[in-house]
């Protein structure tokens, strides 16, 4: 199994990559064969993540955003078909209910990359709020159940869910912040 993350630009330093690996190794219970980092900055935004569908065309793949907290054993997240989070159980859908903070697939889903590249200029303009809307409108997908809520609803108390996404609250990973989540970081 392959773990994948994506880091580019100045917003997230190598600390965030090391920190994700630390949480996976120490708390998640996941066993993996390789830990891969996408660092090629083509678009200057999170559309860079789509490169993973071109680069990794075999085996089991599990992608995590860098701004998550993993604090205990994860449920089974490996999927055969292309699968990502659906946030509609904890937030209003807005332009998309999807959230690619966690993504999994097995084998070859390079058709996602091919479709995007075939008309990338239009897609970047049409779905300028992020790649999750591209998935929502253009790609066949499956979604996880209730596995990863937002920390905004669990700022003061650790949730039963073993992973939370920080989203707009990613400042909580910066120096100076402390809460239940802090002890799980490096």
């Amino acid at each position, binding site marked *: 199994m392959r773990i994948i993350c994506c880091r580019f630009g100045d917003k997230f330093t190598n600390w965030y990559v090391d920190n994700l690996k630390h949480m996976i190794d120490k708390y998640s219970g996941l066993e993996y064969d390789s830990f891969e980092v996408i660092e090629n900055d083509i678009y200057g935004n999170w559309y860079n993540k789509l490169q993973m569908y071109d680069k990794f065309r075999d085996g089991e793949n599990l992608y995590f955003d860098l701004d998550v907290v993993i604090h205990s054993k994860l449920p089974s997240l490996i999927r055969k078909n292309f699968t990502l989070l659906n946030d509609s159980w904890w937030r209003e859908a807005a332009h998309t209910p999807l959230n690619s903070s966690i993504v999994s697939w097995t084998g070859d889903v390079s058709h996602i990359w091919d479709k995007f590249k075939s008309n990338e200029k239009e897609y970047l303009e049409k779905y300028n709020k992020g790649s999750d809307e591209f998935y929502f409108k253009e790609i066949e997908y499956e979604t996880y159940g209730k596995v990863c809520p937002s920390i*905004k609803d669990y700022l003061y108390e650790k949730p039963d869910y073993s992973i939370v996404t920080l989203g707009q609250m990613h400042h909580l990973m910066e120096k100076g912040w402390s809460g239940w989540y802090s002890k799980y970081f490096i």
Partner: protein
Amino acid sequence: MIKICTVYFEGLYTPDYVSKLYRSLKRNTSIPFEFICLSDNPNVEADVVLPYNKHSDIKLHWHKLKFFSSQFANQKPGDEIIIMDIDQIITGNVDDLIGHPVSDNELVTYGIWWDSVIGINGGFYKFKSGSLDYVWNDFALNPEYWQMYYFRNKDVHFKYYGEQNYVNMKLHSKNMKVTTTPPEWLCKYTADKNEMVTLHKEYTRRFNTEYMLLDEPNDMIKVIHFTGPGKTIHDHNEQFIKDNW
């Protein structure tokens, strides 16, 4: 513990603004406090320096809202948090200001005596740690929206202004108690000479005194606040600055 919290970033001001505020507070109060600065310069003079993240969505002075969160700056239950702007000169004993009593669900702020649409002054906030967390937590969910909201709404004339409008709105939405310090403690300073004449007149009339600011400030004044965009302290050469800053 009283924590006095400030923000400094490279631009309008120089790092010595932080030192001068820190040292003048030490000179003018007998109350122990911890001085914290959120800064892009790790060498500013403070008891604790926390990093200012230039790559985040948070702009400029909006960073100071972080101190409203009890999860920031090593706050402990019972701490009293003071947030101060660094463009201020302390000119008298501030024990009554720093030690001003504050209860849960209350914000203490400068009393102001000049025309103002909002009833709070971002130069000084004091509150109990943990009692106003929602000010930061709600802002953090959509910073880009709030940072431009008051400019788009024409409440302020400069982009990314409106932080005190936001704080005021949040306090009112929760029916929080706002307590103001005696207004005569505060002097407003501006580089606009005509405006200063008007301010002098208003201060002397309102507080039945002979002057607000000559070579030295009126004895009632504890703090001189250089307010508004572009109004720096180091560009001025008045005697009261040499004596107190």
